[in-house]
Structure formats: structure tokens, C-alpha cells
């Protein structure tokens, strides 16, 4: 037992958690008593005795859990424990619950954890849709409702979409570029463990007096600066999620820039790598702004500062500028990795090179650059300087161009291909093209100021974000999970169940989110718990469809869990794909490659006899024949 407590792990983590919380609590109480104040402070924006432990407890946990052991020993000049690789790789399920430094384990941890939060966010959404099925108040009180849509959005954005992409890329990207791991494996593990912490903080806000944070995921000041305690949970949770994101982005950048296999020059990088390079450039530049915005709100709340207090010279609108300077890039942080996934899948299953590969890569970079110049399109009616509106409108509309290039190039990739649609991954990729186009079109409409003036803050915007985020991002996430499931688990999933999930999801998405455009244009504002009875029928349809959409996700979960355990063995390369990860075993060996592979051509060399992307270690020379595809376990 004593040894178990000294070892990094859950015991020590639990002790660290308690000690951290106690430290924070007694620090506040002690200092307050010393200054002659009441021990506890229970103003709604205060509660330092809760807030400070909320920050110190997670650090206590991380210390105990072993996140910092190596760095501290090293910094203190102590001999570091010789690499025994015990914290690397997974042989038993318990290894997934450790501070593990293997990028493949971390990728799996990410995907499973974020899917769990997807479920929670989905349940919150269904509660909302239950309330909105009929006009009038039925199920939840108005304050609970505001809490529901706020936590729903925050969980979906910060704990599902952004990190699930980081998880998928964590798994495949090092393999794809022929690297043995990420550049900073310990930082990588730390990034992962910050996530559940953020999630627990967000959800714990429901227990706070006054309920969970309820100023929307946008948390506009001064609504947020004066809101009850739960808002501080949001301010703090974002710091953990944001730090996780930034650390991962740095890790990806260094990994992509320095660890590519010999021969992989930038024009031989698969587009998924380009996409994550672009995403990381956005994260590194933009995420500090959301962290800053939330710190400023936090300081206004608990330290009595006045960043956004107009009575003391603060500027209310500046919150929105800072927030959107992150959050517009954030919407592309939630989309670009998906673009990468779609390029891989379409090329593989159409058996054709990606059409216009270089322009595809440049379009990603174009989106990155433009993304930093469009933030104020969320503020056309916010009362900001009116001269800023037209320039921002122009850049906003221009961002549709690189987005359009991507759509046209995917279509171009299909032409003259050999399109296989047996895989659920490909079905989602094809459906993505169509559905995302709708979201892009409504985006352009929103970018046109006169139209935005009318539909801003209505259900039309809700429709737009769900077409781009559900029909866009989530479709690509499903596509990616299905595509790499065989690689990650070594087993095939059930395509029949995949199809049920696919059709249910596509139909549910369209039925639930198309009518939202209509009620929004007709005058239904967003973020309301009740609405005029004229919108009743459409809302009923939306709610029913949302429940269908929710229900078919259970098919997905069942398929994933059962196939992971009992699915037929997958073989190395069930899709006959080209990129490097498919040339190693499924799942790949702990250190990925015995010998670093050599890249000799572009990533999408389909249809050119003899052309190759990679020569794996152990193969003698360039003229070894293309390895025969192994098992293809595909129903018709």
C-alpha cells in the first residue's frame, strides 16, 4: 500500500487532489481571517473559497498522478528514472487509465473520452429539445434552460469537437509521417489529462449555487461578469481545455516540422497532415485570446477589476472583439482537421489522387490567414464601429472561396475514379460534401450584412452552426473513426450497423436542422425557452428528429464497442490505402516502425503503375512489388 501511494497513479492522484483542494481552501480562508474578513464570502460573483481550490485541486491531482514527475526530477538535477517504457504503450486495458506517453494510447484515450462527452452534450441537447417540442414551459425552468444550452455548446465545442480531432490526429499523424511518436510525449499525455479536468469543472458547475453557467458559450460581458458562481467554473474550465489545445498544437507543429520521415518534403505530406498543420497554426495564435477573455471576465468577477465594467471606464464591446478573435478561428479549428480526413477517405475509396493537391494545401493556408481577419462578422449588430463592418464582410465572403475550392476538388477527385461505397467512412465523406455545402451557403448569407441584420441571433444562425458543425465536423469525425477503426483496434466494425447509423444520422440531421432555418427567418430568436405558437409544428418536427438523431448514435456506440471486442480481424490495410499508417500492423507496434520508412513519392499515387509513396524498412529497394492487399472484409 505504501508503495502504491508513493508510485505515481490513481492513489497518489487522489491524495494530491485532496491536498490541492485543502491547500487552496485554507489559503483563502487563512488570508481572509488574517485580513479581518469573514472566513467565507458568498457574493454571487465571489466565492474565493470555492474558486481557488477549483484551480489548485486539479494541479494537486496532476502532481499526484505523475504528470510532472519526470520534469521535476530533471529540473532538480536528480537522476531521472531510466527509460523502462513502462509508461509507454498498452498491453492491458488498465494501461489506458495511466499517464501514458504513447501517442496511440493517448489518441485512443482522447477519442473515447471525447465520445463520452459527446454523449453528455447530446443528452443536454435532448433535454432542451424536449422543452422546445411544444410552446410554453413544460420541463425545465428558464434559468435551467439557459444553463442547458450554455453547457451543451461548451461541452460539444471544448470537449468533443476540438479534442476529438486532436485525438484522431494524435493516433494517425505520427504514423502517417513515419515518426515513432509525437515530439513531446510527456506534454502530449499532459494535454490529454487536462481534458477530463476541464470537463468535470464544466459539469460540476451544475452543483454551484445559482446553477451552471448560463450566459451562453459566448459568455458576453456584462451578463457573465455579474452572473452567479457557475460562470467562474466556465472561466476556469476554459483555461484547462485551452491549455490542452495549445500544448497539443505546439506538439503537432514540432512533430510535423521536424519528425517527417526522410523523403517526405512538404508536397509529399498527406492532406491530413497539412490540415493539422493549419489547425495548429490557428490554435497557437488564437486560443490565447479566449483564455485571456475568460481571465478578464474572471478578474472582473472576483477581483473587482473593470475590464468590461462600463461604469469604471471598461468597454463592453471589447469583450466580443477578444472573444471572437479566438472564436472565429475556432470554428475553423473545428473544421480543418475534418477537411483533412475527408481528403484521405475520398482519395482512398475513389482510388484516385486528390484533385489539385497543391491548391488543396494552399486553400488550407489561405483559410488560416483569412480566419484571423473575419472575427467581427459575429458583431454586425453589436454596436461596434460601423466602418469595420464592410471590410470584415469582404474578408468573410472571401473565405468561402478556399472552402469552395475544397468542395470542388473533392468532387473532382471522384471523377474518373473507382468509387467504392461499401465503407461507412466513405458514405459519411460523401454525405459531408453535400451537407457542408448547405452550411457554407448559409454562412455566405450570414456574411452579407443586410441579411445578417435580420437573421443574426435567430434560429437561422442555429441552423448554420449545426449544418457546419454536425453536418460538417461531426460527419467528418464519424468518417474518420470508421476509417481508422481497423487501424486503431485491429478489428473491423459491422458495415450493416454502420449503414443504419449513417442513414439515421443523415436523415436526422437534415430533418432536425433544415426547419431551423425557416423558423429563424420567420422571426424565432435563438436562446429562448419558449416561442410563439406559430412555430409549434416546426419545433415539434425538430424535436422528434433530434430524438431520432440521438437514438441512432446508440447504434454507433454499440457497433464500436462490440466490434472492438469481437469484430473480425482487420489486417494491415483493409481499405488498400497508400499512406504510411496502413503499411504497419493493426494495431501498430509500440514504437510504430522497426526502421524509419523512406518516402519516395506523393501520398496519393493511385492508378500509376509502379509509383509509390513509401518504402518501408526491411524492403530492399524501390522495385519490390506493391504489397498485395490483405484481407478485405467488406460486404458487397
Amino acid at each position, binding site marked *: 500500500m505504501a508503495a502504491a501511494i508513493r508510485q505515481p497513479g490513481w492513489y497518489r492522484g487522489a491524495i494530491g487532489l485532496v491536498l490541492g483542494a485543502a491547500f487552496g481552501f485554507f489559503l483563502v480562508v487563512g488570508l481572509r481571517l488574517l485580513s479581518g474578513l469573514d472566513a467565507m464570502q458568498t457574493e454571487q460573483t465571489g466565492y474565493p473559497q470555492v474558486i481557488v481550490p477549483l484551480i489548485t485541486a486539479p494541479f494537486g491531482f496532476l502532481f499526484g498522478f505523475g504528470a510532472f514527475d519526470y520534469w521535476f526530477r530533471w529540473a532538480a538535477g536528480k537522476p531521472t528514472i531510466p527509460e523502462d517504457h513502462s509508461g509507454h504503450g498498452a498491453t492491458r486495458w488498465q494501461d489506458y487509465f495511466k499517464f501514458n506517453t504513447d501517442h496511440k494510447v493517448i489518441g485512443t484515450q482522447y477519442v473515447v473520452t471525447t465520445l463520452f462527452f459527446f454523449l453528455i452534450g447530446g443528452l443536454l441537447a435532448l433535454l432542451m429539445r424536449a422543452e422546445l417540442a411544444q410552446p410554453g414551459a413544460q420541463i425545465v425552468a428558464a434559468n435551467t434552460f439557459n444553463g442547458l444550452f450554455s453547457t451543451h455548446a461548451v461541452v460539444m465545442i471544448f470537449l468533443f469537437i476540438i479534442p476529438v480531432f486532436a485525438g484522431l490526429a494524435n493516433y494517425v499523424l505520427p504514423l502517417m509521417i513515419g515518426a515513432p511518436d509525437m515530439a513531446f510525449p510527456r506534454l502530449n499525455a499532459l494535454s490529454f489529462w487536462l481534458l477530463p479536468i476541464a470537463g468535470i469543472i464544466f459539469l460540476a458547475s451544475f452543483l454551484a449555487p445559482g446553477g451552471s453557467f448560463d450566459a451562453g458559450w459566448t459568455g458576453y460581458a456584462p451578463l457573465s461578469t455579474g452572473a*452567479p458562481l457557475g460562470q467562474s467554473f466556465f472561466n476556469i474550465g476554459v483555461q484547462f481545455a485551452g491549455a490542452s489545445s495549445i500544448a497539443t498544437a505546439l506538439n503537432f507543429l514540432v512533430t510535423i516540422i521536424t519528425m517527417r520521415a526522410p523523403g517526405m518534403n512538404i508536397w509529399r505530406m498527406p492532406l491530413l497532415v497539412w490540415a493539422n498543420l493549419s489547425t495548429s497554426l490557428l490554435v497557437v495564435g488564437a486560443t490565447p485570446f479566449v483564455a485571456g477573455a475568460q481571465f478578464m471576465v474572471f478578474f472582473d468577477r472576483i477581483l473587482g477589476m473593470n475590464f468590461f465594467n462600463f461604469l469604471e471606464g471598461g468597454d*463592453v464591446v471589447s469583450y466580443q472583439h477578444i472573444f471572437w478573435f479566438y472564436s472565429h478561428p475556432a470554428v475553423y479549428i473545428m473544421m480543418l482537421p475534418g477537411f483533412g480526413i475527408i481528403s484521405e477517405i475520398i482519395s482512398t475509396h475513389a482510388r484516385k489522387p486528390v484533385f*489539385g493537391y497543391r491548391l488543396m494545401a494552399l486553400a488550407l493556408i489561405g483559410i488560416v490567414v483569412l480566419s484571423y481577419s473575419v472575427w467581427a462578422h459575429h458583431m454586425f449588430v453589436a454596436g461596434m464601429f460601423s466602418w469595420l463592418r464592410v471590410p470584415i*464582410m469582404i474578408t468573410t*465572403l472571401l473565405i468561402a472561396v478556399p472552402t469552395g475550392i475544397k468542395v470542388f476538388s473533392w468532387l473532382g477527385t471522384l471523377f474518373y*475514379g473507382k468509387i*467504392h*461505397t461499401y465503407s461507412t467512412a466513405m458514405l459519411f465523406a460523401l454525405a459531408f460534401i453535400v451537407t457542408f455545402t448547405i452550411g457554407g451557403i448559409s454562412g455566405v448569407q450570414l456574411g452579407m450584412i443586410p441579411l445578417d441584420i435580420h437573421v443574426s441571433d435567430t434560429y437561422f444562425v442555429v441552423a448554420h452552426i449545426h449544418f457546419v458543425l454536425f453536418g460538417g465536423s461531426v460527419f467528418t469525425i464519424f468518417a474518420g473513426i470508421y476509417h481508422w477503426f481497423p487501424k486503431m483496434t485491429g478489428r473491423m466494425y459491422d458495415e450493416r450497423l454502420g449503414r443504419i447509423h449513417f442513414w439515421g444520422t443523415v436523415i436526422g440531421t437534415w430533418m432536425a436542422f433544415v426547419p431551423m432555418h425557416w423558423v429563424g427567418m420567420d422571426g424565432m430568436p435563438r436562446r429562448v425557452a419558449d416561442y410563439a405558437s406559430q412555430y409549434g409544428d416546426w419545433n415539434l418536427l425538430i424535436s422528434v428528429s433530434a430524438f431520432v438523431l440521438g437514438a441512432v448514435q446508440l447504434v454507433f456506440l454499440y457497433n464500436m464497442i462490440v466490434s472492438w471486442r469481437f469484430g473480425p480481424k482487420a489486417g494491415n490495410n483493409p481499405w488498400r490505402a497508400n499512406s504510411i499508417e496502413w503499411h504497419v500492423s493493426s494495431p501498430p507496434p509500440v514504437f510504430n516502425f522497426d526502421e524509419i520508412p523512406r518516402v519516395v513519392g506523393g501520398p496519393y499515387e493511385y492508378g500509376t503503375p509502379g509509383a509509390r509513396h513509401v518504402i518501408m524498412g526491411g524492403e530492399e529497394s524501390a522495385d519490390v512489388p506493391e504489397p498485395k492487399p490483405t484481407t478485405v472484409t467488406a460486404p458487397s
Partner: protein
Amino acid sequence: MTRLPIFKMVLAVIVVGLIQSVVLLQFNWFGQEASTAAKPIDTMMDVTIVLSSFIFAIVCVALGYALYKWRAKPGDESDGLPIHGNTKLEVIWTLIPVMIVLGLGGYSWAVLNDIEKTKADAIHVNAYAQQFAWTFGYPESGNKWSEGEIHVPVDRQIIFDLRAQDVIHSFWVPEWRMKKDAVPGLETDVVVTPNREGTFQLVCAELCGLGHTTMRAKVVVESQAEYDKWVAGLKSEVPEDLLLTPDQYIEKQKQLEEQSSGIEDSGVIETNKPNEQD
């Protein structure tokens, strides 16, 4: 390499696009038009609907044709043609969209200038947003005050000066199509020329707290004579506090604070709580 049936595909795009446009144009998406801004905005929506219909048709036809033509037979393990791109095509689908969106931008700019242009004979009405109610002042009629209900004359340009002193609210009458936030510490306004008599609803469109859902007010557009009569019949005047400009308001709060600062500091950190929630 088989030649593409370009002509048939273009035809299909035109047919599909036309059908979509015709169907979608049947609906009055934005509801009743009750201000001079409504018509140009609704026309703009129709333009984007037609344009989008054709763009969406291109995507659908291309995808449909590809799936019809190049779906692999089961067991076919061969590859597609090794086409890596086509510079001419790529330039086309970069430049044409650039021209389209720049056109849309110019069009939007023109319409924006149009709907926001103020006239010399416009009348000013103040709209005060507070959690969770609207009140209105009529500065040109001796600062008369009405709560939860606003009357305006038809066919006169009205500049609503928006004021908020707690959190952000947003002034929106869907039938007028215009919207603008009321921001604490800022003077914002929204310009509307109602051109249809009737009763409408003013909606708060920006999340403002617990009562956001029910923060509505009644809007009555009537003839100038009826409006004059209504304003004349109003009893109360706008409370003095609401009349202050943001700067004056801040000044006044400062003075109040100075007066009260004689009181012994209670030691409780004073935080600004614009929206006491319980």
C-alpha cells in the same frame, strides 16, 4: 479517357437549379414586410436563394453523376485514372467564386447604405432596455414615456436611440428586418421607416438573462394623427436617470458613490453586479 457529357451536365444543373429556385421562391421566408428596409433585404435573400440553388445543383449533379458513372463493381480492385489536377479548371473555380462573392459584397454594401441612410425629418424615439422589459421615450414630445408598448407613425423615418444600463439587449422587430444591440456604456441606434400600419412585436434578440425569453414589447404603427393623439395622452415622463447619456450616467454614479463613501467600509469586496439573478 471518356469525354464528359458537359452539355448534359450543364443542362441538368440548370434544370435542378431552376426547380430548386422556383420552389424556394414560392415561400415568403422572412414574413410580413412592414418597413422600407424589408423589400431590398427580401430581394437580396431571393437573389442568394437563386444563386445558392445553382451552386447546390452543381454539387449535387457532379456528385450524382460521379456516383452513377464511376461506382466500382464489387470485387473491382483496379484504380481510377491518375489525374492529379487541371490547372485551368482550378483557376476557374477559384476566380469565378471570387467574382461572385465580391459582387455579393458590393451589392450588400449598396443595400446597407440604402437602408441605413437617415433623413432630415426623421423623428427620434428612445428605447430603454432593462432586464427584462422595454420602455420608450419620445424626446420630441416632451419626453413622454410609455412602458412595454411603443407607438410610431407610419411612413416616417424613425431613429431609435437604444440605451441599456445593465447588460446587452437587442432591438428587433422581425417585420421591420432591422436589428441593433443596446449596449451599456454606448449610444447605438437603429433606423427604421415603418410603412405598414399594424401591431407587431419587439423582440429582445440578445441573451440577457433569466427573463430573456419573455422580454417583448408591443409595437403599434399607426397614422400620424393617431400617433400624435396617443403621445399626447401619455401621462408620465421618462425618469431622469434614463435620460442621461452614458457619460452623464457614469458621472452620476460616481457622485453617488462619493456621497455614500462616508459610510464605513464594510470590508466586503464591492463587485459590480449588473444583473442580480435571484
